[in-house]
């Protein structure tokens, strides 16, 4: 019977299947960080259990870590305890860890791909919803809770109910200045934050095929913002080329065997998806969110919507609340909105290509006096690469702050936060109330829009310069 890509990967990982029970699914890679693992290790200790496969497990520090003065002890004692707890657990259970200061430290979803331990056809989990990022390689990758982290540590499996499949087709050539971030923001605006609920989304079509691995990761990363369990893209030559040069790529005969398998990882031509949705690349534009969930977005040339014109009662109420929180008036052009802070980074847009794209816009320009800009590489490796290319100098000359790697201002947990009422243009993934700091106001944008906004001080695209 013909299968979708997600169904093929699923079938290859079923350890045990029984009528009336969830499938027991094998997990090829388990990524760990400090925030969602401590209670899981505690659970293991209480039950006298071991980590079944330390060699399929890797830990890094990202959510709760500072991006300044990383040579000093973490100032907040509660944060320090959490990071120290991860280090102790890694040592006790024999798990590889990349700690603050290590060249491989960084956001867990940037570290996996750059080490080459993210490969096509794998099942990958992490106690973090943006694990969907790894789907860009044609892996089935999804976020889990702490109970499931403990389950994977103990058994290297998870009992799971097979999700439904959704195809999102994007065809055509993207207009100048329109990036992977704009594509995914437009998709979420169309299908809503619950539109993908219960599905694995496969992104297909010529627009997706033409994207770099970084762009594909940006798209898959935000699948969760549409409510999807995972997002994935069939692997192709772009994928193989990216993996080949990485430290943990298969070698010699293993490489040949791997590629032979990876080439089978495509949805069959007659495979049936539960839902299919199509987008035309030519109709897409730079996108920005105006509200407090990632589905509340519009093209940058649009104006703040008028809730009174929204027919759905539930959506109207949500829009009214969002405008109040965001301090915005209906009808105001989005491009007239002044921002205070630009955040370039995160697992969505903190990779080398994102930094290059922003630097190309900023080079030789000066930052608007009214804004501050944080540039936070997704990993220490990305930071080193950027410095080799001289990008750090471009950012510093522009007037931005060049930080160390981590989740930083994406989530309001570490010292990098918005103040009450402060407004950001952020390349991250969530514009929830308080997400970047209590009372902070977030507009989600692409690295190109972030850069242009830093120059003008108002939401802008490079075309406005």
């Amino acid at each position, binding site marked *: 019977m013909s299968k979708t890509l997600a169904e093929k990967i699923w079938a290859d990982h079923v*350890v*045990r299947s029984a009528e009336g*029970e969830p499938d*027991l699914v*094998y997990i*090829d*890679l388990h990524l760990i960080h400090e*925030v*969602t693992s*401590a*209670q899981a290790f*505690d659970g293991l200790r209480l*039950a006298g*259990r071991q980590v079944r496969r*330390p*060699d*399929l*497990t890797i830990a890094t520090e990202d959510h709760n870590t500072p991006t300044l003065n990383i040579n000093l002890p973490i100032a907040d004692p*509660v*944060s320090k*305890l*959490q990071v120290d*707890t991860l280090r102790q657990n890694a040592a006790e259970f024999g798990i*590889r860890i990349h700690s603050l200061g290590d*060249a491989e430290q960084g956001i867990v979803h940037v570290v996996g791909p750059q*080490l080459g331990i993210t490969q096509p056809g794998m099942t990958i989990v992490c*106690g*973090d*919803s943006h694990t969907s990022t790894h789907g860009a390689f044609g892996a089935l990758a999804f*976020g889990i*809770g*702490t*109970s*499931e982290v*403990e*389950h994977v540590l*103990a058994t*290297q499996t998870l*009992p799971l109910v097979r*999700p439904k499949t959704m195809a999102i087709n994007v065809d055509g050539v993207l207009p100048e200045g329109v990036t992977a971030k704009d594509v995914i923001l437009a998709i979420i605006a169309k299908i809503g*934050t*619950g539109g993908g*609920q*219960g599905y694995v989304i496969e992104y297909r079509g010529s627009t997706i095929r033409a994207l770099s691995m970084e762009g594909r990761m940006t798209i898959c990363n935000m699948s969760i913002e549409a*409510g999807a369990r995972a997002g994935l893209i069939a692997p192709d030559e772009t994928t193989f080329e990216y993996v080949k040069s990485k*430290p*943990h790529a298969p070698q010699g005969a293993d490489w040949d*065997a*791997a590629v032979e*398998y990876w080439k089978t990882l495509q949805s069959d031509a007659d495979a049936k998806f539960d839902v299919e949705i199509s987008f035309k690349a030519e109709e897409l534009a730079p996108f920005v969110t105006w509200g407090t*969930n990632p589905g509340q977005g519009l093209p940058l040339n649009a104006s703040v919507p008028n809730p009174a014109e929204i027919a759905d009662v*539930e959506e109207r*109420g949500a829009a009214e609340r969002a405008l109040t929180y965001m301090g915005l008036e209906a009808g105001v052009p989005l491009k007239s909105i002044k921002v205070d802070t630009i955040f370039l980074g995160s697992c969505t847009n903190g990779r080398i290509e994102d930094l290059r794209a922003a630097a190309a816009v900023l080079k030789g320009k000066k930052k608007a006096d009214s804004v501050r800009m944080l540039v936070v590489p997704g990993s220490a490796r990305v930071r080193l690469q950027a410095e080799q290319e001289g990008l750090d100098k471009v950012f510093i000359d522009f007037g931005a702050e060049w930080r160390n790697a981590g989740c930083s201002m994406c*989530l*309001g*947990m570490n010292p990098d936060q918005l103040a009450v009422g402060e407004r950001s243009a952020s390349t991250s993934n*969530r514009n929830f*109330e*308080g997400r970047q700091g*209590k009372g902070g106001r977030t507009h989600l944008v692409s690295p190109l829009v972030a850069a242009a906004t830093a120059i003008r001080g108002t939401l802008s695209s490079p075309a406005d310069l």
Partner: protein
Amino acid sequence: MEKFITHTGTAVPLRRSNVDTDQIIPAVYLKRVTKSGFEDGLFAAWRNDPEFVLNQPQYQGATVLVAGVDFGTGSSREHAVWALQNYGFKAVISSRFADIFRGNSLKGGLLTVILPQENVEKIWDLIEADPTTSITVDLEAKNVRLGSEVFPFELDDYTRWRLMEGLDDIGLTLKNIDAVSAYESARPAYKPKTLPARS
């Protein structure tokens, strides 16, 4: 895990949609390394508002949360489930839950009940009319009862059995650990390992 068979208490109406897990518990509260004490972070940004429904005296002691559509979206943090449980909630009712939140809740014994939106609104109306209304969430009978109303709900038999028995998933999986070993022995050699480290 504590068994869940049936629960009777009072309910609190949360008339908001898209309540993401950052609202349920903001990231600044996620630094603890225990599973307890998260009740002070529950809906932290909204708790400062005396008008917020959890602050209203008539809803004190409620154990069932009745929320709008798309409850628990966003971050995978299980702390959201712990915060609701630490506060005293035994069940949450909504017309749609985010996948990861729902998975977490059912692992941890917080019963998430999916009812059609019209039933959710009916419950909101009834408990707002009389906040002392007793509500029963009956997993054995698979229904929610209050006043003369009975709203049936669905839950797969396996999860229902596991919750009613109070069984933890790891123990169940370990009964089949031989199947895991057999699977591992057939895994292809090209699959990556994190150890020994290469860089």
